[in-house]
């Protein structure tokens, strides 16, 4: 058994996959350095140094075989942070190299492929919810700030959506769990990685004057647009799972 350790980036993972082929490893597992705790003392470890050239060669091959949308699916598996994601991605790439003329991602009867389709569905759902459930709060400096805590690492997947939508206001979306976010300053829309966790303690005191007024209006609207005769809490919770409530203005 050989264990490949990579730096945790998608390019790093693709480099690792390249090296599995390059060194003809048979019995192999891939781990991100941070996640790895050596369990199998007989395993040989191989440290992968991320090389964009190698990653790009894998990328190109995949583009030929399964297209950009296929790569996008593998990226979603990667962002799911599923403990098995590296193994599944490797498995799919190996399958794709064996069958270059078929879109192997449609072979749903294969267990790993089915898993990919399921993970993609979960990640897509979370991505969609994060376009829906993000609540911006206007701060004194005019920046619209939102905090999120998604189960999957979806920030890279929602960046374009918000960039397209909010071009005339400054905004930030901050992932509390992963401690990074995206920031748009009317010119650029980039990821930011604060040195320490953002201090949310005195957060509400820095609201813009009118912020709490609009929050109240929205809360009242939410109550008034409900038809009590049709109450269906089960359906409500199915659509808005409780874990999102504390970030939703109307549910606070």
């Amino acid at each position, binding site marked *: 058994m050989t264990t490949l350790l990579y730096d945790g980036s998608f390019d790093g993972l693709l480099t690792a996959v390249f090296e599995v082929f390059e060194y003809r490893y048979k019995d192999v597992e891939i781990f991100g350095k941070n996640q790895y705790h050596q369990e199998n003392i007989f395993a040989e470890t191989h440290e992968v140094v991320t090389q964009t050239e190698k990653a790009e060669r894998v990328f190109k091959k995949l583009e030929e075989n399964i297209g950009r949308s296929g790569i996008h699916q593998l990226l979603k598996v990667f962002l799911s942070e599923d403990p098995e994601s590296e193994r599944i991605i490797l498995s799919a790439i190996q399958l794709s190299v064996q069958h270059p003329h078929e879109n192997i991602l449609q072979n*749903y009867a294969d267990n790993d492929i089915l898993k990919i389709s399921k993970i993609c569905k979960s990640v897509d759902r979370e991505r969609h919810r994060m376009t829906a459930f993000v609540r911006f709060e206007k701060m004194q400096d005019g920046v619209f700030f*939102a905090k999120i805590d998604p189960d999957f690492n979806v920030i890279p997947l929602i960046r374009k959506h918000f960039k397209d939508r*909010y071009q005339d206001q400054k905004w930030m979306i901050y992932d509390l769990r992963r401690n990074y976010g995206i920031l748009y300053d009317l010119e650029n829309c980039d990821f930011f990685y604060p040195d320490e966790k953002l201090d949310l303690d005195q957060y509400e005191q820095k609201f813009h004057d009118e912020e709490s*007024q609009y929050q109240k*209006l929205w809360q009242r609207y939410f109550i008034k647009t409900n038809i009590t*005769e049709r*109450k*269906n809490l*089960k359906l409500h919770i199915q659509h808005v799972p409780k874990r999102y409530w504390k970030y939703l203005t*109307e549910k606070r």
Partner: protein
Amino acid sequence: MNFDRLKEKLEILADAAKYDVSCSSSGGTRKNKKGALGDSSISGICHTYTEDGRCVSLLKVLLTNHCIYDCAYCVSRSSNDIKRAAFTVEEVVDLTINFYRRNYIEGLFLSSGIFKNADTTMERLVRVAKKLRLEENFNGYIHLKSIPGASDELMQEAALYADRLSVNLEIPTESGLKLLAPEKNRAEMISPMRYIQKGISQYNDEKKIFRKVPKFAPAGQSTQMIVGATNENDLQIIKVADHFYKNYNLKRVYYSGYVPVLEDKRLPSLTTEVPMLRENRLYQSDWLMRFYGFKAEEILDPNLPFLDLEIDPKLSWALRHLDQFPINLQTADYQMILRIPGIGVKTAKKIVQARRFQILNMDHLKKLGAAVNRAKYFIDFNAGNVFLKYLTNQNLKKLLIGGSSSKFHNQFSQQLTLF
């Protein structure tokens, strides 16, 4: 901004608008311009859900609940003693923009009670949309209500700024409308719909020749009917929907189970339950027509004018057409696979893709997301299927609903007790 007064108005005018079912923000795209606000995509986004389980994607309010009409089913009817309010154009624009900036909504759904006359009302609705587009550079979704009797010129302008327009048919049958809304007439309700439909098809023609044609109601038209306020049957309702889909190219028909809020001898009593299950079955039928290739005549016929409340309309169709089954999963065409109970559009597509790689069995079917508990009786696999022996069973329906119980059970006989 006087927030207290604004809050009071919002409460009254959101409350009065809540019976309008449509909240869809889908069907059209409107790309954001550089440095502007808003962007809407074909699929739309629901930003939250009310406690009744309905989606909230648009700020849905009335411009005013003052109304000159006295329709029996409507809370805003002139003879109803309720608080009245009216937004200014600026107030609606301000709420829309500020809610949108906080990502609460996809846009605005503006309807109105009719004050003075149709044109005055329509003109005010158009003014809101125009201000949002031209002064606020807003590219989010706008749904405007077409006011029956509004002039063609105003409808033309509305279509230039709104994404979607809709007219409520209110009551599915003309006789029902006469009974409950004697001041309204069907022809007047339909005429703005016809105007918009012509405009859209003209737009599509011009679009083929010229690259730049101003958008014209890009998300199309929709309508809604109240179900259960009068005694029409489901076949009549489905036929009306089908008629509007075919002849007016509607994007959506909504069905609104009547919520008894007013005492009136022409209406079901205040203790009548909201016919939620019937409404749900109508939506399922609607889906069958729009996505499953079913014709209206296949769903119900004159001998069977009501939808079965116990089972969904597709299963009901299958049980009436057992001769069409079993369907072989490996060889049947997509359209037939779509007709298998328990298999939806997504699963059907996956089946057609996956079967090219290998022969499918029951286990695969389950993993692909089919509701196997229903589907298993209607399918043939190349390797055979033990459940097929039940296909000709007299009690197949019982077998199918045997394990399940519905919280709507008390509604199963509702059609009989309605009046």
